[in-house]
């Protein structure tokens, strides 16, 4: 089950990247209808249709994986709260699919598009959480509470999520020059820059604590966080340069990938900080509820 949940989480990250490519290529309306594409299940994959219909296909796959995962958890997972996580993921992926359809049919209203982007990240968090709580390291009592700063890690996660939200507003509100929605771009940009400063301070503070820890795992987590943070900051500069046209015309590969990578690494940073929250918040007594067969099944 753990491997399957990891597959679901990894597929969700791929789906987020595919969604980012849709926005970066301005292909969200390449297929005007939904749930079919030009009235067909499989249209010709050319131009913007490749990104939009490709996104729909990957989303269908992730939806299917989530259904299987939720049913699997419901039938075989002894921990009630983990079963509920599976149900929540299933509900989230259904709502997410409907939002995706709605944003196409309503022609990308900013509110729906931003909601679609934010729920994608929340759903990704759910799949990552499920993958982690079904893993050996969670199930094993020996690894209980190796880290000590759950509040700081929670603050990092919340700040990163808010940054993703502001980034989504920037991406979706500013697609049309001169549009009224573009009026919120500058305030959102200012907030996003301030948010970047806040995230940097919080991540560095957390990473320093992790690096000074005794065991190796927290140190690796600290290095990972710092690596993701600095990659994200560089990609943020790249995404801004792409936005102002310094990386070529709209649709230029460098421009597309700078912005999409910024979304993807943001999701990875969110997942990494969420994993820390889960590690730090884990209670040792929770291991007692885990069936021994789960531990036996999981590879080390």
């Amino acid at each position: 089950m753990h491997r399957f949940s990891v597959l679901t989480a990894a597929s969700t990250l791929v789906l987020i990247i595919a969604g980012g490519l849709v926005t970066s290529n301005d292909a969200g309306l390449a297929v005007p209808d939904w749930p079919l594409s030009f009235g067909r299940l499989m249209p010709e994959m050319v131009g913007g249709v490749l990104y939009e219909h490709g996104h729909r296909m990957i989303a269908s796959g992730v939806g299917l994986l989530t259904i299987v995962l939720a049913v699997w958890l419901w039938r075989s997972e002894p921990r009630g709260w983990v079963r509920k996580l599976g149900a929540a993921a299933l509900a989230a992926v259904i709502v997410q699919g409907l939002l995706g359809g709605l944003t196409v049919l309503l022609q990308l209203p900013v509110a729906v598009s931003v909601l679609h982007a934010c729920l994608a990240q929340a759903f990704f968090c759910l799949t990552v959480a499920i993958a982690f709580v079904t893993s050996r390291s969670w199930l094993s009592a020996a690894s209980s509470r190796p880290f000590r700063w759950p509040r700081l890690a929670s603050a990092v996660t919340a700040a990163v999520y808010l940054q993703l939200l502001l980034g989504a507003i920037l991406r979706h509100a500013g697609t049309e020059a001169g549009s009224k929605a573009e009026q919120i771009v500058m305030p959102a940009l200012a907030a996003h820059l301030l948010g970047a400063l806040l995230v940097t301070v919080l991540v560095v503070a957390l990473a320093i604590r992790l690096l000074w820890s005794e065991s190796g795992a927290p140190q690796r987590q600290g290095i990972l966080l710092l690596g993701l943070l600095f990659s994200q900051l560089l990609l943020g500069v790249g995404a801004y340069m792409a936005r102002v046209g310094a990386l070529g015309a709209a649709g230029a590969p460098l421009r597309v990938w700078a912005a999409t990578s910024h979304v993807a690494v943001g999701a990875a940073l969110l997942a990494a900080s969420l994993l820390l929250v889960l590690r730090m918040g884990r209670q040792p007594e929770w291991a007692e509820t885990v069936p021994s067969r789960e531990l036996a099944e999981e590879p080390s």
Partner: protein
Amino acid sequence: MRKFGVFLLAVVSVGLWIACGGGAQTEEAAGGTDAPVESAAGKKVDPATAGSVSGKVAYAGEAPAGARLRMGADPVCDKAHSEPVYSQDLIVGDGGGVENAFVWVKAGLDGYTFDPPSGQVQLDQQGCVYVPHVLGVRTGQELQILNSDPTTHNINPTPQNNRDWNESQGPNAPPKVKTCARQEVMIPVKCNVHPWMKSYIGVVEHPYFAVTGSDGAYELKGLPPGQYTVEVWHEKLGPQEQQVTVAASGSATADFNYGG
């Protein structure tokens, strides 16, 4: 775990709240309905005293070369051209004339009423480019959209004051006929399947508008005597405007100069 659940709920709620805050902008941007705009009864133009405004839209200096359009994303588009195709966002003729500039009377016609527009204006999708690149229509006038390509396009106008829409049009599909209810200069039109495809539509309540050809020249005929604000719009060079006075049966000149 309960704390985590509360945390997750909180961040999603914040996301929903902020996202919904952006929605008000979108509804405004979407414009209203397509209900026809009623013009109040007013003066009619007297052909006996009507004059004109003419001029040239020019670019001084060497114009930057247009970017080459890469159509490899759709083999049909790629095969449609034996020669390289370049962006039409700035075309300057040999004499410095700016092509595809939209010139119109922006102000000065208050109180006049005009005969309803007749005939259709055509916008074709040909070789995966819009033909013409810039066009003008009257409010309420029918715009006929054709697809001459053996590939599917989507037509996606993004107006601020008119209703937006997005529809696909396959090969050999019947023409689409649309109207715009409100004056708007300009409405960008794009194809999201082929992102290099862009066109601009100027929607004007009166008949005094023109799109410049390769010589940059324009003429607005049949204007009643009066003082007017004439504006030129260009997608890359931006807008400019001038005040002109048209005497009875007279002609006025308004040249617009960019660059230099």
